């Protein structure tokens, strides 16, 4: 059983992992460079000055605040809708069940630009002006699937007899939900919520179509990517974004560790 991995495989796997991580690490170095006119490598010197400069930039703060607000509200909506949908699909079979699960997955199975341009043309047709809520509308739609995936896996493993026992003992549906179902699915929901938050916080393709003149943090970054004007500030923002998104992912990993949602275990 415990045969050794061939050297070639080890090297290929290790090289693959390095390929995935080196570019992100590079960002961390660039955040400290003294060079501000080009992407010169190796950095001519290291400094902490750009962190202070970034800290005092009001446009970065505004974009960050908008992103956090949008991500929070979209996550809450997605958690409610995703859980409802998962509860319905996991426990019962009904006509159109496959269609419902396809409907949930569709917003991320089709390229983001299609979701974006569809929403934009719908807003145009319905004469809805761009606002905070048009961004949320788009984000919540593609976040549902993340919560749904986590919740549906947990519902499938939660024994149905627990719910029946609770009802048999005289609890109402609401009490059963509060005291039996919710504690059972809580960590899966939290994990799904964190991933949804990370997804929304980072989204740019759909957002460019639904934001109008507003700037979320990814849109701010996109502008800098297309027309670089303040490279050092962008470097610092990029590094902070990496750190901010790592937290929910690590959180989600520890919350679902040892359960079926860990990739690799067969269904």
């Amino acid at each position, binding site marked *: 059983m415990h045969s050794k*991995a061939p050297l070639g495989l080890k090297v290929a796997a290790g090289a693959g992992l390095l390929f995935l991580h080196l570019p992100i690490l590079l960002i961390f170095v660039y955040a400290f460079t003294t060079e501000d006119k080009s992407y010169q*490598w190796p950095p001519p010197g290291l400094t902490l000055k750009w962190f202070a400069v970034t800290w005092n930039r009001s446009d970065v703060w505004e974009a960050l605040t908008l992103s956090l607000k949008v991500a929070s509200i979209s996550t809450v909506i997605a958690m*409610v809708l995703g859980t409802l949908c998962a509860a319905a699909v996991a426990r019962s079979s009904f006509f159109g069940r496959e269609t419902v699960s396809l409907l949930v997955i569709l917003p991320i199975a089709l390229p983001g630009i299609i979701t974006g341009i*569809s929403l934009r043309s719908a807003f145009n047709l319905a004469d809805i002006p761009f606002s905070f809520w048009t961004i949320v509308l788009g984000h919540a739609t593609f976040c549902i699937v993340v919560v749904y995936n986590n919740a549906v896996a947990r519902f499938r493993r939660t024994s149905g007899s627990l719910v029946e026992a609770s009802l048999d003992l005289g609890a109402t549906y609401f009490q059963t939900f509060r005291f039996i179902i919710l504690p059972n699915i809580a960590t899966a929901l939290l994990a799904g919520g964190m991933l949804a938050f990370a997804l929304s916080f980072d989204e740019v393709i759909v957002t460019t179509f639904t934001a109008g003149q507003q700037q979320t943090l990814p849109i701010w970054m996109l502008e800098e990517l297309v027309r670089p004007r303040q490279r050092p500030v962008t470097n610092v923002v990029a590094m902070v974004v990496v750190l901010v998104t790592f937290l929910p*992912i690590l959180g989600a990993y520890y919350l679902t560790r040892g359960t079926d949602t860990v990739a690799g275990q*067969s269904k």
Partner: protein
Amino acid sequence: MSEAVSLSGRASDTLWRRPRFLLALLLVPPVLWLGIVYLGSLFALLAQSFFSIDEFSGLINYELTLKTYKELFRPSNMDILLRTVAMASAVTVAAAIVAFPIAYYAARYAKGRWKAVFYLGVMLPLWSSYLVKVYSWKLILAKEGILNWLFETLHLSWLLQAYLSVPGIGGNSLSVSWTGTFLVFLYVWLPFMILPVQASLERVPATMLEASSDMGARPGQTFRYVLFPLALPGIVAGSIFTFSLTLGDYIIPQIVGTSARMIGQAVYQFQGTAGNIPLAAAFAVVPIVVMGVYLTISKRMGAFDAL
């Protein structure tokens, strides 16, 4: 207080007697949301592809016509479609090749702590910011960046120059070449390939591979006739992501690459600066149709069980 309790009790009883009603209560909010916001918008878009734009006034002519689709098949537009599909295919094949060893090692040999390292090693890049990942490649591929520096330090600049002078894949520098675009696509979508391939490989019993070699198969033969066919559903599942995501992306080719456009950029420009929403909609239909065909074939190959 007691009235409220009895009310909730009665509501609860009703739900128990009518499970269909409970099901409907659960389903209505999400289905309404997705149906109205998502499907509604999607149909609004599709409908527009059957309108046309008046060439003189630039206004949308709200009469059903196939004129816009005829325009889609003009040679310059066909180029965009073919170029995008070719890029998506190349990225998908390359992603499968790079992903396989990682997924295989993680599935078969990594145990305990290393298993976690591999899992997080794929999940962190998968979930970290898309724009930051693209940005990091802008840094890498820049003329004064690390890759050129590496070639110079190793005195291999001539090799890079020779490669860049190959027409089609080369260009003035890496950051404005097809190779650059390809590398960024490969980097950004690679984790989407690793996870399903790993999931399908986890289900291959080690004893099966041992049996194959016991019966005299060389490692190459075991791979060709046992491992690869069993991993194929996972590869197809991963290719759904790499293919679909490359088809619709408009940001990567805009930031790293040549001036030749891909489908996503065409959609973006036609709906934005050009104001030709019908043509943008017709362009958007292409990825939908391609992915529809792709998903149907993958379903036949059992790829959905590997998701």
